[in-house]
């Protein structure tokens, strides 16, 4: 197959000339204990083909039974996305032959999704809100995992043989499909990213999935088309498959906008196809060529009865939904009294949970923000890790702040305490004791140091006695130096003046 690939159009030019329309399909693996249709356990990292039953291996005679918890999770997701929940819906068989699909059909929902017609307001980094319309959220089962051995880069092409691990086969998935997302204009890549990120946050809050992108718990397929103006009919779309990080979602949209603009500029037509995304350079390339249109021969799964969640159950689930991320952000914003820009920075830095937990541990919101967005952000950046991955807990920050507030250490010493905690020396209290960092408040040793300083600088003592208090700083400095900064400077000043009389 040959496709002429005109040079990319610069992104700015592309969005000036065309109106991008996005569509996103997100698959989330549900964190149920067992699989979608059988009691095989599912957990990450198990030995290949140890988490199977006759059902998930597609053995002759085996029959599926719907996992009730998976249905509940799907309803939770549907409700969180403001969807209608079907009174009755069926599974269907999607028939296609592939070795990682044990029955050679995938049991999925086709024309009767459990949830439909919803929306999600997505907030961009600058606070702009874009509403994404949800077409449907439906349940299905995951396929197994193929490993191609002997070829280049693990691709099937040129491989000597392939191994299949059916541990993942039958893991429950919910697929969330948006309606065409329009009106994002040049911000389409950002909207796409923010949408997937917002979904990830929702999955976590709902506790329906670990939602770890790097483990493939959440996978996105990104559809993109261009049209001349927002009033033009929709253009031909491409579907970039398995874009599995937030940044990649943004880059994939951006790349496709530039690529399709180049094709349209050249007067050619975009080919409707699936495409692969390449992490290395952020480009996309054509996927499997479909010689003829796929015909999945969908029909209602005769081995399963319809899923008919009672309205009482749906309302019960609705009533027990946790506070969703956006509502929570608004509430915390109000409670903490941060400025809009401060709040956005906190959210963008991923510090919301940390600050909330630090406040819960007794710190004021301002103090919590100061630590996480200041000193700790600096250290995270320096070590190139996420804030949450620093070896310090919100409770420890709360304790640290208490030590400062009670005057047992000062701000400068607090940083040393932080060093100790991060170095694994224990909680702040323990570090203070072990390193002997407590502010010296016993006047005895302090007076000794003061007397020594006074004796060493009699000329300054004279000047102060003469009524000029200016040079007293030199004495205080000497005392602080002698006490390695552990003395309370205010108290030192009081004692020095007292001493000089």
């Amino acid at each position: 197959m040959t496709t002429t690939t005109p040079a990319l159009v610069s992104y700015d030019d592309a969005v000036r000339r065309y109106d991008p329309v996005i569509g996103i399909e997100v698959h989330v693996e549900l964190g149920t204990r067992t699989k979608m249709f059988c009691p095989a356990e599912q957990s990450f990292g198990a030995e290949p083909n140890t988490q199977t039953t006759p059902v998930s291996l597609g053995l002759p005679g085996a029959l599926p039974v719907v996992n009730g918890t998976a249905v509940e999770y799907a309803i939770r997701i549907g409700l969180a996305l403001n969807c209608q929940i079907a009174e009755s819906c069926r599974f269907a068989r999607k028939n296609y032959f592939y070795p990682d699909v044990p029955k050679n059909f995938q049991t999925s929902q086709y024309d009767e999704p459990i949830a439909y017609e919803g929306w999600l307001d997505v907030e961009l980094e600058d606070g702009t809100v874009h509403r994404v319309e949800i077409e449907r959220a439906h349940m299905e089962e995951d396929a197994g995992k193929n490993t191609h051995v002997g070829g280049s880069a693990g691709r099937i092409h040129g491989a000597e043989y392939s191994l299949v691990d059916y541990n993942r086969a039958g893991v429950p998935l919910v697929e969330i499909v948006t309606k065409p997302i329009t009106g994002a204009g040049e911000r389409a890549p950002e909207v796409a990213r923010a949408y997937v990120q917002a979904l990830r946050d929702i999955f976590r809050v709902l506790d329906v999935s670990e939602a770890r992108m790097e483990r493939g718990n959440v996978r996105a397929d990104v559809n993109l088309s261009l049209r001349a103006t927002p009033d033009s009919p929709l253009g031909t779309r491409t579907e970039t498959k398995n874009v599995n990080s937030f940044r990649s979602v943004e880059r994939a949209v951006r790349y496709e906008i530039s690529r399709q603009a180049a094709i349209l500029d050249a007067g050619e037509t975009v080919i409707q196809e699936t495409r692969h995304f390449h992490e290395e350079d952020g480009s996309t390339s054509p996927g499997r060529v479909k010689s003829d249109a796929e015909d999945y021969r969908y029909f209602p799964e005769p081995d399963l009865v319809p899923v008919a969640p009672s309205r009482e159950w749906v309302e019960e689930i609705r009533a027990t939904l946790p506070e969703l991320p956006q509502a929570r952000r608004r509430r915390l914003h109000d409670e903490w009294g941060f400025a809009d820009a401060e709040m956005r920075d906190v959210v963008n830095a991923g510090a919301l949970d940390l600050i909330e937990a630090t406040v819960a541990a007794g710190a004021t919101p301002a103090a919590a923000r100061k630590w996480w967005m200041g000193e700790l952000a600096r250290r995270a950046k320096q070590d190139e890790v996420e804030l949450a991955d620093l070896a310090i807990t919100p409770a420890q920050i709360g304790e640290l702040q208490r030590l400062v507030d009670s005057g047992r250490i000062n701000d400068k010493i607090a940083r040393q305490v932080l060093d100790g905690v991060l170095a694994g020396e224990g909680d702040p209290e323990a570090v203070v004791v072990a390193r002997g960092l407590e502010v010296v408040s016993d006047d005895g040793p302090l007076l000794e140091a003061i007397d020594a300083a006074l004796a060493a600088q009699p000329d300054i003592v004279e000047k102060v006695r003469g009524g000029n208090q200016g040079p007293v700083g030199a004495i205080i400095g000497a005392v602080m130096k002698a006490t390695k900064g552990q003395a309370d400077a205010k108290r030192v000043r009081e004692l020095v003046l007292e001493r000089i009389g």
Partner: protein
Amino acid sequence: MTDLTRLSAAELAETLARKEASSVEATRAHLDRIAAVDGDVHAFLHVSSDDALATAADVDARRAAGEELHPLAGVPIAVKDVVVTKGLPSTAGSKILEGWIPPYDATLVEKIRAAGLPILGKTNMDEFAMGSSTEHSAFGNTHNPWDLDRIPGGSGGGSAAAVAAFEAPLAIGTDTGGSIRQPGAVTGTVGVKPTYGGVSRYGLIAMASSLDQAGPVTRTVLDSALLHELIGGHDPRDSTSIPEPLPPLVEAARQGALGDLSGLKVGVVTQLQGEGYQPGVLARFHESLELLTKAGAEVVEVSCPSFDYALAAYYLIMPAEASSNLAKFDGMRFGLRVEPTDGPVTAERVMAATRGAGFGDEVKRRVVLGTYALSAGYYDAYYGSAQKVRTLIQRDFDAAFAQADVLVSPTAPTTAFKLGEKLDDPLAMYLNDVATIPANLAGVPGISVPNGLSDDGLPVGFQILAPAKADDRLYRVGAALESALESTWGAPLLDSAPRLG
């Protein structure tokens, strides 16, 4: 000493309970009978002597120890090869499963084992239960014990022939369009298709999921009731299983045998008689109606106009589901694996080569039919229309059961035909199931009771159909007819069959 193989299951069970014979003796007697006649009949694909004798010895020991046992404990049974049995071959009559030993038991097999019935072996059948003569088995023909040149019916010809030839007192069959009842009719045995969902399908190698039902194959109505009660009931591993207890079947059979049917309305289905039915078949049918009238029943005529389309609808729905159910036989995980003789050995080509070599013609015919019926652009015209016909047939049943407690017809339009006679004419073969198919499409239960010999000296069957979940009516009416017939004949019908061996 009595020939233990000539006893009914109920009689044998009593003999064992009275300790007049042991289960080992009974099992050995049947194994001897198999050794003597199965060379001619070829009812079995696999005889599991050691397994059966071990079970029998265990039951004998438990009985000697005074343990309370299931009423059928120690009574041997044969199981159709479409039912998976842990540790025993389960080929479904297909080359594609040759050598496969299932790692699990079907639910009904678990129940059989738990009750202590020695499993004599697995019986022959049309490949994947597709056929009406057992000639589509990949492992040779089964011969009708009444005339070894004739077919034993199908697909469950092996189970019916085994019971008719006194190789087993009990057998398990499966019925998708008549595969229990039609073999029963042409071999002079009793066969029951329970209400859909009445017996778990877990572990039945599926042909058409929405039509398949397992059921008893026996020589008496009471024996069927005993076996039906053992294998039936709710199974959480089969979503389509009815979550209610079975009606009392054995009690209904005992009651019926008393011969009083007063108050019962029997509906004769207009569409299931007349053209296409052998005169001898119709003559026996009318004689049986008279016996029912004599027993106090009122005979009325009911019309089910949509039954005329049942065969057509069946031959769309069944192949559609079968094409998908049989997709799993691909050489990837179990059973036959054939590599292409030339060209690259890709998964796709191995699948194609395996299926090409492993499936017989009738299976391929139905897979192609079903694939076509489900394909895009044809789905509505074929599968969709067939489902509408199915609904109409269900409504016909509802209307008919408003007028009559049971419906009756000849089970099959003809007696057993000669081996090879219809092998080249699939449509003529399909017509054998014209009277049995409506029950499968509607999910209602049916029984075939032997009701005499046709002019050609071959057995014919009388079919009784009841509303869903009213299987007890089959046993009441069936037992009444059986006892009336046997008093006319002076002996069971099978006593007039050739004594083989």
